[in-house]
């Protein structure tokens, strides 16, 4: 008789995080290990350490930044592009603008995803309605096979003009080429939306990832199989839901935002348990910080994002990333201003206080000087050196006639200014008042900054969830299974009968439900969410508006107008048209059984001095996280620590440990 264990795994560039939940056990097991070049090695080793006698892994969900990093570093496969005659350079010309305005030393834009020598053309042409103007000739397609072989192409991207309106030619090319090349990927499958450059680039990036992700999934499954881990594998996708390996093999782009998605999924789940529908997630690590809005219980998503200066169109969480984190370097700009980031000391040499040769002052050095991080403690096995931290900050302090702690507090406050900007970008700029939100803080440095950010943004409370340092892995444990579908349908709301969109909506739902049924989902447990991309006739950017089944054009129009006013401050009497229909089908993962830490006796870890911006030195109590009594409230200033993270409670705030797990930082009584 074996006991089932579920695993959530997040593989980052530096650390592999594992969270294990054994059936019937009150506590989660958590492990952080260095990432290995074969990622399955770290996972298998970690599982061996976490698993006990008589236990068996019955499910493993996996999230990773590996795909993002591969894309950013250009480590994709050799890809050829096939496109309509006369248009092979669309991929290079792009939108013809440059990425920067004044830099003569830099090229105007990055190199195209596929070099010109590997961009091929075929005679064929569709119009914007999908009618064939010039037919495709099989012989011409087959004539390319030799060249593709000669160039040792691993994957072929096919993107023909107007293929979003009629995929027939692309599908014919795929049928002809599949016997001859490893992978073929079609723009009409990956991104059936108009705007040829964006669609073509997206398709090429997807093609570059196909061989890579294929190898990676094969390594992973065989590595796990060798260790006798035959549990079904799920993957965390960019939209914040789980998907299957089969889906990812065809559309590896689904994994592009897999890393940050886990934390957002976890925030959404933990928020739901605490009755929170509106929140901002705040994930601060060493080099970057990700924030995302959760609105009405759903994490906001976008259909396009820029990666490496180029547009990639896919459904992903609306995560705003900024290049500021614990490793960000403080420096003096030419005009005499104190700036923080975007340059980071990275993992090596790292902050000065790591004692690995770094001498520049970083945000982490400021934490040490301020007493937020225990100067006698260690982070990730590294002993901290308070003296080096102080020495690194000293020159800045002298430059601005400040004491060293004042300068350190200034560095943290300036880093916070960048965070405030990012949080405002996902809230106020989308018409949501942060004063109604909860800040969910995680990542190595998140809980250290969150209290102060809440003060600056007048956010009433901060949630520091359990496992906040391995939150993305935790998210893999609680994320829902999710499939998305999208279809272009241009329709005027006033003219179209509801049946115009009801029929395709139902059809899309049938397809998604069938796929979920293949995964063993009972149809009555699947939740469908419909939305339409709407705009005033004449606009080119759409607003996504949720649409319940059966709504008529007038009701949909009213919802659109409401959102338009929220975003743009006005509405007009112009006709409104729909452009795309979208459906998300979600199979919720049961969350009621997530184990909670056992309450333990209050153990004060003593006191230490900590410096607060605007309030100076204070002697503050330090608590181990599991040493706080559930339900008990402690007035700030205070510091709450666990093995991997430190929550700082500012003067005027109070912290409470919820019997259900999270810490709450709120304005004090």
């Amino acid at each position: 008789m074996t006991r089932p264990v579920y695993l959530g795994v997040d593989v980052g560039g530096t650390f592999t995080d594992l969270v294990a939940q054994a059936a019937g056990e009150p506590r989660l097991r958590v492990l952080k290990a260095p990432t290995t070049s074969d990622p399955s090695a770290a996972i298998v080793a970690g599982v061996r350490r976490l698993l006990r006698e008589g236990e068996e892994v019955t499910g493993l969900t996996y999230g990773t930044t590996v795909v993002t990093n591969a894309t950013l570093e250009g480590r994709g496969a050799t890809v050829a592009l096939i496109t309509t005659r006369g248009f092979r350079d669309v991929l290079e010309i792009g939108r013809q603008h440059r990425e920067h305005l004044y830099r003569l030393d830099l090229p105007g834009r990055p190199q195209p995803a596929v070099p010109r020598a590997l961009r091929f053309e075929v005679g064929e042409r569709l119009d914007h309605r999908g009618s064939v103007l010039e037919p495709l000739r099989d012989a011409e397609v087959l004539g390319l096979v030799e060249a593709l072989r000669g160039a040792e192409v691993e994957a072929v991207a096919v993107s023909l003009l107007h293929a979003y309106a009629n995929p027939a030619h692309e599908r014919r090319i795929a049928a002809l080429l599949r016997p001859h090349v490893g992978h073929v990927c079609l723009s009409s499958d990956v991104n059936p939306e108009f705007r040829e450059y964006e669609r073509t680039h997206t398709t090429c990036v997807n093609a570059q990832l196909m061989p890579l992700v294929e190898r990676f999934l094969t390594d992973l499954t065989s590595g796990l199989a060798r260790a006798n881990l035959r549990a079904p594998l799920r993957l965390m996708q960019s939209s914040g839901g789980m998907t299957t390996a089969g889906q990812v093999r065809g559309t590896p782009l689904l994994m592009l935002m897999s890393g940050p998605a886990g934390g957002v999924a976890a925030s959404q789940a933990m928020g739901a348990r605490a009755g929170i529908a509106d929140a901002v997630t705040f994930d601060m690590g060493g080099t970057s910080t990700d924030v995302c809005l959760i609105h009405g219980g759903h994490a906001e998503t976008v259909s396009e994002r820029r990666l490496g200066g180029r547009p990639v169109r896919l459904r992903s969480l609306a995560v705003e990333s900024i290049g500021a984190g614990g490793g960000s370097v403080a420096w003096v700009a030419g005009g005499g201003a104190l700036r923080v980031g975007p340059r980071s000391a990275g993992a090596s040499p790292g902050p000065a206080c790591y004692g690995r040769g770094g001498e520049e002052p970083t945000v982490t050095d400021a934490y040490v000087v301020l007493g937020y991080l225990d100067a006698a403690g260690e982070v990730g096995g590294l002993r901290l050196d308070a003296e080096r931290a102080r020495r690194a900050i000293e020159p800045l302090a002298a430059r601005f006639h400040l004491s060293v702690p004042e300068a350190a507090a200034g560095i943290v406050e300036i880093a916070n200014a960048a965070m405030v900007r990012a949080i405002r970008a996902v809230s106020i700029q989308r018409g949501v008042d942060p004063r109604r939100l909860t800040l969910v803080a995680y990542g190595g440095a998140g809980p250290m900054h969150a209290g102060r950010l809440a003060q600056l943004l007048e956010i009433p409370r901060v949630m520091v969830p359990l496992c906040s340092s391995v939150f993305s892995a935790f998210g893999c444990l609680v994320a829902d299974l999710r499939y998305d579908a999208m279809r272009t349908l241009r329709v005027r709301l006033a003219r179209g009968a509801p049946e115009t969109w009801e029929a395709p909506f139902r059809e899309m739902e049938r397809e998604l439900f069938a796929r979920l049924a293949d995964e063993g989902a009972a149809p009555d447990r699947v939740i469908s969410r419909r939305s339409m991309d709407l705009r005033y006739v004449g606009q080119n950017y759409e607003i996504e508006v949720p649409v319940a089944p059966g709504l008529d054009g007038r009701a949909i129009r009213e919802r659109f107008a409401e959102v338009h006013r929220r975003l743009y401050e006005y509405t007009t009497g112009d006709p409104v048209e729909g452009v795309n229909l979208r459906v998300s089908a979600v199979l919720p993962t049961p969350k009621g059984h997530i184990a909670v830490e056992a309450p333990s006796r209050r153990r004060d870890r003593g006191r230490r001095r900590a410096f607060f911006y605007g309030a100076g030195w204070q002697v503050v109590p330090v608590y181990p996280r599991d040493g706080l009594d559930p339900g008990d409230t402690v007035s700030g200033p205070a510091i709450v620590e666990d093995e991997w993270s430190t929550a700082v409670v500012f003067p005027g705030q109070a912290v409470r440990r919820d019997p259900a797990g999270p810490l709450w930082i709120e304005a004090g009584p």
Partner: protein
Amino acid sequence: MIDPVTLEVVRHAIYSIAEEMRGVLMRSARSPVLKEAGDLSCALTDAQGQLIAQGRDIPIHLGVMAFTVQEFLRRVPAPGLREGDVYFTNDPEVGGNHLPDVKAIMPVFHDGRLAAFAINLAHWPDVGGGRRGSYVTAARDRYAEGLCIPPVPLFVRGEPNAPVLETILSNVRGPDERRGDILAQYAANAVAAARLRELFGRIGTGVVLGCAHRFLDESERMMRDEIARLPAGEWAGEDWLDDDGAGNARLRIAVRIRVDGETLHVDFEGTAPEAPGPLNATRFVTASAVFYAVRALLGPEIPANAGCYRPLAVRVPEGSLLNPGPDAPRVGGNHETSQRVVDAMLRALAPVLPDRIVAGGPGTSGLAIFTGLREDGRPFLLYEVHGGGEGAGAARDGTNAVRVHMSNVMNTPIEVIESEYPLRVECCELRPDSGGPGTHRGGLGLRRSYRLLCERGELTTMVERMRIRPWGIFGGGDGAPFRVLLERQGTRTAVKGKDNRDLIRDDLVIVESSGGGGYGPPGGRSAALREADAASGFVTSESRGARRDTQ
């Protein structure tokens, strides 16, 4: 004394406001030139009209807007302004550039006092005048170029000013679309004003503006430091426009640049007089081009605001091509002549900054406007600019098919063009062999062709670099010139650079943009780069053969 922390907090806040404005304007606008091509810019000024923050927009606009609010305040004194008012103007004399670029100016109050302005500029696809699209080659004064809007409030205390709004809309083509654009311009300013008021409330108006003035001082300091690093001396540069559309003679732009301690003197003495045709640049456009060139060469990372420009002393002779009389026609001066000012300045400073300059690029908008009536009688207008090959630099080849210097307007996707206009795009490709040879090669131009699918239409061009080719430097060759061809019933004829002409069904307009100039002698080009050129087809064997023959 403002502490360094507050300074950074305010810096983040005001830059994010300027950037948010662009998103609101672009996403809610109606004209393709705004919503797809992004021909728009946004900025914030203090109560005196000094530019304190700008978005990452179009350099020509940003430089001009450094003057707009100040000139506006001379005509509409501050005591007359009310909260919720939004003034619109395209008057070239009010810190303007050309009639199609319409600025929306909103005063921002806090605690009852004028504290700042939000300003945005949007290119309207039509402002009336003799031809659809308002690029009138035959114009010999500004009255022929369309409606001139002096600063008037189109919104008073947040409400539309209907009589004036309707007057303007009845004088421009496409009034419905324009109404949507005006609302989008209003919205961008209203959002910025709300954000600024919130910031003033949170941090204090005095502190915010104090920080803003520190930013100006910082930028000034940085710019002065950069100028002081240049060797003392004076350098001259020149370049020419192909023509002004009225005559065939080329027009000279001459500049002398003198370094005097921490000040840079820029004098355009010797430049051609005001032209009869529409290639005149307002003095604001001229200054904007100077600002761009200096910033690109000396301090691309210096935060852009009015402080950057304080160390520059610009003199432009009155009555010249670069500072014409108030009635001169000016539509092309904005994006053609301004680019030539940049060329002249780069050439002047090439001996001093050989590692920083780039050779001549597509110093033209490469503008083609297609207009006409759809089959159902509704009018259409496609405003399309064409990038070309960038000039090469000391360390790299020029970028292919890109916008350079004063402009950064995007193209319209082919799938958008074919869905919305009776046009079919038959190719969009690079133009092999168009880049000037050199140790580093100039970028390639592009070829895009458009077939008219309706009964009748019009074509307007505003294109330079057809005769005076993009210049190579230090031994590098010139880029291939710009060409526009009209193919009718199998016969191709060349279209002039500044033209308005009728089209008929099945006409094919072929736009071939210029290549960039090369940098350094072609003999110095490495074998590896030559091989890459051949493999990618950027340089064809015919062209290499031809070159050998002529050497």
